[in-house]
């Protein structure tokens, strides 16, 4: 696939933006400003970047409990995203959702959900709607390796297949579900093999390589948009930190961690775009500086925002207060 320089820059920018956002989150967390738990996207940036770069603004994504990267890559307002993580009234969910429900509907995020695999049916339903409404919109539905063992996975793949829905299933196989290695819980090497049983084309890619992810996504999105139905993309990737807030992830062999840290997604895409002449090292640095400023500003915004009033807890149950 011939990829334009513009796209390459885009991929680098998206990957890096997600990285810087997550680093900011980690920083704020270190300052005890992030309540609750936290599932960082650090390490998996290339997946969100590559997939969302293949989508239009009017397309949709369905996110997970590890959703910060998805929403940022899809173009979410960083102020509102960070404020949400801090539980502020200015957050995109007015502080009601937090990390596990970080959602910005207006940029096409259907939702982030705390129940593993529960987003898959929702993504499929959105794709049904894209089709029934006669649009060309496409849904990218993210979920983890662990999620692929939940019942809705099979149900949803089947429904998408029989109705030929415009959905791209993106399995982020980061090798673990909490402390559980996927190889203990999945008999095949690739989760992608399960797609075959539903006659869904699938592809396994290096999930730390935003370009590779992007190329697979472009093809899948094209198929979906043209009425060719669903595709499953399995992205092999890795969490750079533990599963959640306090997990030191000691259950992972040091060699494995090292192997993956050496395949850092930001480094990788940076190397590619520079090699392909889309950016110089200096350009890349400029972009980083600009993004870092944005992120820092968002951090300030979030920190300086007010908490919601206690009684706001009673709003938003229904369209009108009953």
């Amino acid at each position, binding site marked *: 696939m011939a990829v334009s320089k513009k796209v390459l820059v885009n991929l680098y920018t998206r990957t890096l933006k997600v990285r810087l956002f997550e680093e900011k989150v980690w920083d704020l967390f270190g300052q005890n400003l992030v309540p609750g738990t936290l599932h960082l996207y650090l390490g998996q940036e290339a997946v969100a970047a590559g997939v969302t770069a293949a989508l239009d603004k009017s397309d*949709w994504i*369905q996110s997970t409990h590890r959703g910060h990267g998805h929403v940022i890559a899809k173009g979410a307002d960083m102020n509102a995203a960070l404020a949400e993580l801090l539980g502020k009234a200015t*957050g*995109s*969910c*007015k*502080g*009601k*959702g937090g990390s596990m*429900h970080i*959602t*910005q*509907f*207006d940029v096409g995020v*259907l*939702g982030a*959900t705390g*129940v593993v695999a*529960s987003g*898959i*049916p*929702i*993504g*499929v*339903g*959105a*794709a*049904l*709607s*894209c089709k*029934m*409404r006669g649009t060309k919109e496409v849904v990218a539905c993210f979920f983890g390796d662990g999620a692929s063992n939940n*019942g*809705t996975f099979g*149900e*949803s793949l*089947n*429904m998408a297949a*029989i109705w030929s829905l415009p959905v791209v299933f993106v399995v982020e196989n980061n090798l673990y579900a909490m402390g559980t290695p996927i190889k203990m819980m999945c008999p095949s090497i690739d989760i992608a093999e399960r797609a075959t049983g539903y006659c869904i084309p699938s592809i396994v890619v290096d999930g730390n390589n935003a370009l590779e992810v992007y190329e697979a996504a472009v093809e899948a999105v094209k198929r979906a948009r043209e009425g060719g139905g669903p595709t499953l993309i399995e992205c092999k990737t890795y969490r750079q930190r533990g599963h959640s807030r306090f997990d030191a992830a000691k259950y992972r062999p040091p060699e494995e961690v090292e192997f993956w840290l050496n395949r850092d997604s930001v480094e990788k895409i940076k190397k590619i775009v520079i090699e392909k002449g889309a950016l110089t090292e200096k350009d890349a640095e400029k972009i980083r500086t600009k993004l870092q400023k944005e992120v820092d500003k968002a951090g300030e915004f979030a920190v300086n925002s007010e908490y919601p009033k206690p009684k706001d807890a009673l*709003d*938003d*149950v*229904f*369209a009108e207060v*009953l």
Partner: protein
Amino acid sequence: MAKKTYRDALKEGLREEMLRDERVFLMGEDIGLNWGGAFKVTKGLAEEFGEERVRDTPISENTIAGAALGAAITGLIPVAEIMFGDLITLAMDQICNQAAKMRYMFGGQTSVPVVYRSVFGGGKNIASHHSQSLEAWFMHTPGLKIAVPAFAYDVKGLIKTAIRDPDPVMFFEHKLVYDKKEEVPDEEYLIPFGEARIRREGDDVTVWGTFQMLHKSLEVAEELAKEGISVEVIDPRTLMPLDKKTLIESVKKTGRLVLVTEETKTGATTSEIAAIVQEEAFDWLDAPIKRVNAPDTPVPFSPPLEQFFIPSGERIAEAVRSVV
């Protein structure tokens, strides 16, 4: 105006809304061409609206519920059917964790105009997996509205309101009322949620009940009138929002309350009603609030067992007599 069955009135409501708004569509197992729904509610609609808008699905309850939700938040108005209320057990996550909470969790970003239809109740000898009454679970799930129509007139007006509601609505039917007939106007009408209906006025005892038990209570009230006991019978029509006002006023008048549903007793909707009324009308109550429910067992198959399980008119009458 003509007499119509509950089934036909419901179908008419669905049909009118589908004609009115092309975003409305139906999905569920065997609701389409070949079957028309397990209870034939949707029979003929696939022929009229096509298989896209009257959409047969695989046997995937959780994904039916979730897909309906995904469609609802992106511009459609799905009416998803779960063939039997007992099978909602499989869709609890999508209904109770996702649909019910979505507007809230996302701070009001999304509207969730989805209707989940299903059917409760025994009386057909189809045993423990096809006869339950589980509405209480949903009453305990903030974010859901709940309709419990027992009459043909109501089922039509309420389904239309449910479809136009921007929030998720659990629309519950009952197997034994599908064939019941009532006058249903030809002109369009809607019934607002949260308005109970006094189905019979009376002075001595208030009876509040749902579905088939409401019909039985009305029969019992007729009988008891002959004994000189004047019974007021209240049909809540929706459980969420709940019309407390009508009920409390009635209790303030009669001083006595009997609650009647086909649910198993412990943790039923009647427990909630009792808790509310004793709290809000304590000084007006002349006798303890009595609950008439099924016993705390699964629903048995064999006719004599099931008949014992389902509250009888006699049990209702006794409860009423015991408080006057």
